[in-house]
């Protein structure tokens, strides 16, 4: 497994201004797997994806993708690397002024010189893979949330990337759309031979489809393992997360002074 790592985080630190987000993250992600990164809201999960895509630079440490250290790449090299990556944004981020067809065709038209007839076939194949071949003529505003995300998925696999990143792919979907998207992620990863990274807090769906899970808490990897290991885990944070308990290592209450003090109820002297 060690030799087959597509992505490697080594001692990555990152902060927004003075607020540290990541404090020494170490991860290795193997080719051909579906990997989930889980953690509470605001724990820096999305930042991990942005580091892989080179949108932000680590303040210390390095992220290596396919043997290349991302933050050391020049602009052209970075763009060349990005052509091999796909990213699915939380709400799809479809280009609202282009039709479904043109959205999926976007990268082919920008990056290749393929004839229009071939682009047409490829777009229809990609749309067919996500079950929306019949919707090619619609505009993004006419799609439901789940459909928009499937179109965005078709768009991001347009050039057959080696790596797909999914930013909260399950947020705000009904149970049917949710398992459709989950099933697609698994199936496309296997059939296209990609590696997929999933940033999510949907525990049940993720445990069903992923090969490996990393838990991010307080800027460090709190635990990691296969879905079976995670289910059996005795690590308090993981246990709380998997079972959705309101209180535990992650406290229910935001840091505050003593309740009695806030309400002005002093301890009465007797």
């Amino acid at each position, binding site marked *: 497994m060690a030799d087959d790592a597509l992505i490697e985080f080594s001692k990555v630190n990152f902060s927004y201004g003075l607020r540290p987000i990541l404090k020494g993250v170490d991860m290795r992600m193997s080719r051909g797997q579906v990997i989930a990164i889980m953690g509470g809201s605001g724990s820096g999960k999305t930042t991990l994806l942005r580091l892989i895509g080179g949108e932000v630079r680590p303040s210390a440490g390095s992220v290596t993708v396919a043997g290349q250290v991302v933050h050391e790449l020049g602009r052209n090299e970075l763009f060349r690397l990005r052509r091999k990556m796909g990213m699915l944004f939380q709400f799809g981020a479809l*280009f609202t002024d282009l039709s479904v067809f043109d959205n999926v065709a976007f990268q082919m038209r920008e990056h290749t010189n393929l004839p229009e007839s071939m682009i047409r076939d490829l777009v229809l194949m990609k749309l067919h893979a996500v079950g929306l071949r019949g919707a090619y003529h619609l505009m993004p505003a006419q799609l439901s949330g789940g459909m928009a995300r499937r179109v965005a998925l078709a768009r991001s696999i347009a050039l057959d990337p080696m790596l797909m990143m999914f930013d909260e792919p399950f947020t705000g979907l009904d149970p049917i759309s949710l398992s459709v998207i989950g099933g697609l992620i698994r199936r496309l990863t296997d059939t296209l031979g990609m590696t997929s990274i999933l940033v999510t807090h949907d525990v049940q769906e993720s445990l069903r489809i992923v090969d490996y899970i990393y838990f991010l808490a307080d800027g460090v990897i709190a635990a990691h393992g296969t879905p079976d290991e995670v289910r059996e885990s005795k690590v308090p944070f993981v246990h709380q997360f998997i079972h959705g308990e309101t209180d535990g290592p992650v406290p229910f209450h935001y840091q505050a002074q003593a309740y009695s003090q806030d309400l002005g109820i002093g301890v009465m002297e007797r």
Partner: protein
Amino acid sequence: MIGMISLAKRIRTIIESIGHRVADSIWRLGCATRFVLLVLLKSLPSFLRFHLITREIYFAGVLSLIIILVSGLFVGMVLGLQGYETLQKFGSESAVGTLVALSLVRELGPVIAALLFASRAGSAMTAEIGLMKATEQLAAMGMMAVDPIARIVAPRFWGGVFSMPLLAAMFSVMGVFGGYLVTVVFIGVDEGSFWSQMQNSVDFRYDIVNGVIKSCFFGVVVTAIAVFEGFDAPPTAEGVSGATTRTVVTSSLAILGLDFVLTAFMFRGVS
């Protein structure tokens, strides 16, 4: 003593906040300049795929036609009325054509067309780019290895720059027609003297070319402000609405200020 100290503190805070504001504005101006230079550097691909620019000329130019033409007509009609009113006191009502044409070609055409252009097309450009940013469309494009400045901003910039002088010219033409309508058709000023006086006193190089130069400057400034504000907008509903307002306010002030500077260079009472 304590009063003195607190007064000194307050004065210090005021001076500091003024300093911050000035430094911030200069910093922002620097950002905007660098942004525009970046846009210019990345413009070549849009010219190689000219249909991208044509599309933006349609959105910025063609869709602004109605408001430009109607405003031009009314401004010209008002100029005709007011000009006739004043000039007839001196018995020189036949010079009304000159007055209408010169005011329009030198000043009102470029300036009012640019103000309208800023509020019609500039605000739309800012809102569109700002919303694309807020809905992560620009980030998505970047992740697809397509530079949003080259693909989204540059075509819009050039579309605006090409549209503005054309709109100003059409505004002036419509204005002259409005003046003609009011003075010649309705009031009855002699048609021959209306046109011939105009023809004699409007110089192509001195008046028309200078007007066109003005409108080119305005086009660059308005469009640059619009695309910068959109690209720089905080990705929230508030941020985009604030940026749209700033586009209209900043470009209006810039148009009027720049107009004064350009006029001072171009027309110094030599003719």
